[in-house]
């Protein structure tokens, strides 16, 4: 193993930004907790935009240099200590999540705003703290260079996400939250057992060191299987998706947007880290086809069930189940047929772009659904008539989100699916292309059902139950537009997703 | 000496195991409540013997915690036992 050929990690200039990205949300959580509900919102109002600013500096930094940012925590290099690393994938995902979280925060001002001088209330206090915690946990997922640090990150993510589900305190959401907790904790434990096995075999959990030492042996295979199943449960990949629809559909709109757009991407990102960075050669053709098969099943199942839904939020939740499936199609498509290794090729770019465009589109759609619910007092799809006239901007945002989910140009979803199709053609795996095209048809189907109901005229002019603040609609529309215009990155920084990948870092023969 | 202490630890473990089987097989819940106390005494004795036999003084601290928590568990048991809420 060419371990000696590689320079040990060292903190790069600007590496301290990575620490800041993890520490400032944590500080925000602690500070809000102690100062109380009157201040939580204001602290978030300061920290979340600065988080976006921080993410964009890191993004530009990685894009310009084409190399990773590294920070060695505590001045102890791995394997003894922990390294934080930002490669192109991290930077792009951080950026996306910061945008989505900021938009959600603006949207949530209406539901969870605290007026100055009012007493602390339960839901706003919890919401702002949990939102900051999710932001910090996601940054940690993207930057953590150590499998145990990633475990801490997904624990943080779980404990921040589950309470969001039952924030409005209805009994059925409590049940959904409990079911979510059960799946998420089971996933955590399986992941933790896997890391323990890996540590036992290789005496390190650092991703770079591990990727050089790892080799095929029973303990490693068992560890990989356990960790993957655990992460699948957290990502809600079919057939472990049972918790997702009630949890995501039952939560308040702002929470649903975060849960569907942001939280499930955390565990998915660790799957990518695990298989692309730690053990690219271990998945093999059979494993890759299995991942793809589960993804395809998720697409078909999620879409078919979504088509049958009576309620808008449940439809969007099942659409998430289907869209998660797309993320796993990149595994068979990224597998190099000669070396049987997962390659950071166009398929990886396509898959990550799918994650990014789904994040923005789905957040916009859940926000739109929340506005529709607020205006109508229900979200029964059959009775949506006239709503497009009452809140045209919202329906437009919903439609644009749908355009990205279907994969029409110039949306991010289009570019993602284009890259995946290209890989399918190049590797001769036409069956994944069929699945993708079928999924697009299904998606068009349920989008058509909703939109045709929404634009249908109603008997009498619709009286909104509440006046929706303009900024709520604007936040949803902004995210939808982001998702729509994401396809244009083909002319810009799409290559950032390849920046600082491990393969390009290796010196000497592999 | 070491093997004697270990033997004693094994012997106490055996009696604890036997007692546990007896306690946990009885239908009455009050019998079940004795289990934690049993491990406070028996488990404590086993740990103390192990600590001396293996010359690892920190093991004594584990016995200390078991002793401390033996009654605590019983308090929790009694608090949760049926019949409590009827008098609330």
């Amino acid at each position, binding site marked *: 193993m060419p371990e000696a050929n590689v320079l040990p990690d060292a903190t790069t200039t600007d590496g301290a930004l990575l620490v800041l990205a993890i520490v400032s949300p944590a500080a925000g959580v602690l500070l809000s907790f102690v100062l109380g509900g009157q201040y939580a919102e204001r602290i978030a109002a300061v920290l979340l935009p600065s988080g976006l600013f921080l993410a964009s500096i890191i993004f530009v930094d990685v894009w310009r240099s084409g190399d990773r940012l590294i920070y060695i925590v505590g001045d102890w290099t791995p394997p003894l200590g922990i390294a934080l690393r930002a490669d192109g994938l991290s930077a792009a995902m951080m950026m996306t999540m910061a945008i989505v979280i900021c938009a959600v925060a603006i949207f949530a001002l209406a539901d969870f705003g605290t007026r100055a001088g009012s007493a602390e209330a339960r839901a706003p206090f919890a919401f702002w703290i949990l939102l900051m915690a999710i932001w910090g946990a996601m940054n940690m997922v993207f930057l953590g260079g150590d499998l145990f640090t990633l475990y801490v990150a997904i624990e943080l993510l779980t404990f921040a996400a589950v309470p969001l589900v039952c924030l409005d305190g209805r009994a059925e959401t409590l049940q959904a939250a409990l079911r979510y907790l059960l799946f998420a904790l089971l996933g955590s434990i399986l992941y933790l057992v896997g890391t323990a096995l890996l540590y036992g075999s290789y005496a390190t959990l650092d991703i770079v060191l591990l990727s050089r030492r790892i080799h095929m042996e029973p303990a490693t295979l068992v560890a990989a299987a356990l960790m993957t199943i655990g992460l699948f449960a957290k990502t809600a990949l079919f057939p472990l998706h049972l918790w997702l629809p009630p949890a995501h559909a039952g939560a308040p709109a702002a929470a649903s947007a975060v849960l569907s757009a942001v939280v499930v991407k955390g565990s998915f990102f660790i799957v990518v880290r695990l298989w692309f960075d730690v053990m690219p050669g271990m998945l093999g053709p059979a494993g890759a086809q299995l991942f793809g098969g589960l993804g395809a099943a998720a697409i078909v199942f999620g879409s078919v069930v979504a088509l049958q839904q009576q309620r808008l939020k449940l439809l969007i939740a099942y659409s998430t189940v289907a869209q998660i499936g797309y993320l796993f199609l990149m595994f068979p498509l990224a597998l190099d047929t000669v070396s049987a290794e997962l390659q950071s090729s166009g398929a990886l770019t396509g898959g990550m772009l799918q994650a990014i465009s789904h994040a923005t589109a789905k957040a916009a759609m859940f926000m739109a659904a929340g506005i529709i619910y607020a205006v109508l007092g229900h979200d029964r799809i059959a009775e949506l008539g006239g709503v497009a006239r009452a809140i045209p901007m919202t329906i437009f945002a919903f439609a644009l989100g749908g355009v990205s989910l279907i994969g029409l140009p110039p949306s991010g979803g289009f570019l993602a699916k284009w890259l995946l199709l290209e890989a399918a053609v190049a590797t001769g795996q036409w069956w994944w292309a069929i699945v993708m095209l079928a999924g697009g048809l299904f998606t068009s189907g349920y989008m058509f059902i909703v939109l045709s109901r929404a634009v249908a005229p109603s008997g009498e002019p619709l009286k909104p139950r509440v006046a929706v603040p303009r900024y709520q609609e604007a936040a949803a529309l902004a995210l939808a537009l982001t998702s729509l215009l994401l396809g244009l990155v083909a002319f810009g920084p799409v290559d950032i997703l390849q920046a600082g990948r491990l393969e390009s870092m290796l010196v000497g023969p592999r | *000496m070491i093997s*004697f*202490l270990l033997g*004693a630890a094994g*012997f*106490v473990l055996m*009696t*604890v195991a*036997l*007692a546990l089987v*007896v*306690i946990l097989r009885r*239908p*009455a*819940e*009050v*019998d079940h*409540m*004795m289990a934690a*106390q*049993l491990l*406070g*005494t*028996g488990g*404590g*004795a086993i740990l*103390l*013997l192990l600590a*001396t036999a293996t010359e690892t*003084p920190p093991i*004594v*601290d584990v*016995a*200390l915690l078991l*002793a*401390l928590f*033996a*009654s*605590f568990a*019983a*308090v929790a048991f*009694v608090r949760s*036992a*049926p*019949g409590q809420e009827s*008098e609330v």
Partner: protein
Amino acid sequence: MNLALDIFTVSAVSAGALFFLAGTVGLLRFPDSLTRLHALTKVDNLGLGLVVLGLLPQTNGLFGALKLVSIWLLVQLSGAIVTQLIAGTVRRRGSNG
């Protein structure tokens, strides 16, 4: 001197172990919960006390010995309390509750 201490340890610990056995036999043979409580707390506490006594010469330093004794005292205390609490429960609900 050392041999004498060792003999002391062996005999005290053996006696303690026998008390543990006696306690278990008591649990096995006694007819109801209240009498079984005696077997559990009184006899086993005596067993632990003898074990502690036997191990005292083997500890190094006063602090270690103090810790051993305090463990025994703690178990004594909790034994007394647990007996009271459980017996109270038994009295309120009957022995088969």
